[in-house]
């Protein structure tokens, strides 16, 4: 549906019930809202730039003209660059959660505009590509969605002696009360839901959070070809590369592909004899 609207160069708002809204201008996406992620309004209030009443007044003033963003910039609430970055960040964040969720059948309202006005454009395939990249990034950090909707619970005692945290991870740990989920934490501290979730998964991978199940198995090292009688001792990739396999053999390089290739080459040569 979104792609059709983009193709017909539509202008208006595509509303998916209470889940969220996609605003389009001439077929390009200019803003996305999602109930699960902080909106520009929430980011502005959480960072202390505007009060709740301030947002409401600004919204009412700008409702008819849809130039609320320009008004905020003129009033010195935030700079032009900050406004663009805020809209851009909120849109990427909302798209990730809205496009990945099952939502009620969306309705398109021709001509509807957001009160902030237009401050950045996304083309539809580009936005989908970015959501896909973000999904892969999340799975690389910790390949399980188990923690995504559970309350964040830091472990009482960590196994390592030393830990390095990012500023965002620190904020998450301080605000984690064993009842709040990552999405709720994001709204509370006024940070994008995606980066909060990524930080939570990274902390889970580092063993800093209580996990309901055992951690997902690490990726299995690739199997080496079967040994045949009389062949050389096998090197397992990753077990302290450089260890001497046997005194008469040279040191094994750290790269398992080299070892694999050499063994296959030797097997092929032996087959020729």
């Amino acid at each position, binding site marked *: 549906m979104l792609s059709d609207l983009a193709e017909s160069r539509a202008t208006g708002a595509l509303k998916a019930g209470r889940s969220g809204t996609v605003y389009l201008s001439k077929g390009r996406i200019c803003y996305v809202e999602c109930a699960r992620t*902080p909106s520009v309004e929430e*980011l502005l209030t*959480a*960072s*202390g*730039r505007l009060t709740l009443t301030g947002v409401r007044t600004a919204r009412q003033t700008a409702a008819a003209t849809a130039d609320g963003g320009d008004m905020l*910039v003129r009033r010195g609430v*935030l*700079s*032009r*660059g*900050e406004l*663009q*970055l*805020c809209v*851009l*960040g909120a849109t*990427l964040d909302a798209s990730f959660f809205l496009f990945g969720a099952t939502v009620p059948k969306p309705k398109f309202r021709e001509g509807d505009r957001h009160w902030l006005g237009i401050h*950045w454009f996304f083309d539809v395939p580009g936005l989908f590509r*970015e959501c896909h*990249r*973000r999904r892969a*990034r999340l799975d690389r950090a910790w390949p399980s969605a188990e923690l995504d909707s559970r309350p964040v619970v830091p472990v009482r005692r960590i196994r390592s002696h*030393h830990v*390095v945290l*990012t*500023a*965002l991870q620190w904020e998450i740990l301080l605000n984690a009360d064993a009842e709040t989920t990552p999405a709720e934490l994001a709204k509370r501290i*006024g*940070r*994008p839901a*995606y*980066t909060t979730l*990524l*930080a939570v998964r990274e902390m889970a991978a580092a063993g800093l959070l209580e996990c309901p199940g055992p951690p997902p198995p690490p990726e299995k090292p690739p199997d080496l070809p079967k040994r045949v009688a009389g062949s050389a001792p096998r090197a397992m990739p990753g077990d302290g590369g450089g260890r001497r396999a046997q005194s008469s053999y040279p040191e094994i390089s750290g790269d398992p592909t080299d070892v694999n290739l050499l063994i296959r080459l030797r097997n092929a040569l032996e087959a020729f004899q």
Partner: protein
Amino acid sequence: MIGIEDCLSEAMAIPGALGAILVDHTSGTALAMEGLPDPERSAVGLSETFRATLDGLALSSPDGTVRIDDLIITTDHGYQLIKPMETMWDGPLLICVRLDRDRANLALARRRLDSISHELIAS
């Protein structure tokens, strides 16, 4: 006061600039770019470089915590300048400029990048 696009064109106007990119550090997203063949890969690489530097310095500095003002990397071809900018609601944004070694003036480039970042996030 400038917007994202002006910020990038001003960065490209730095003498010797070959490419410039604005990256969201926490998510590794390329927000805007100019003069780069594969911006998505550059964004991931540059944010990893910045993260590794932060982690490494945090471990090696006597205080444990680190704030990076900017990062200068000299390569065999030129310089890579990485400058973090704080926003109120998200982790740092990185503005990264690749400079030609023969044409660039490193001190000038650093100053220009500093003023560009202040104009973008002026408040």
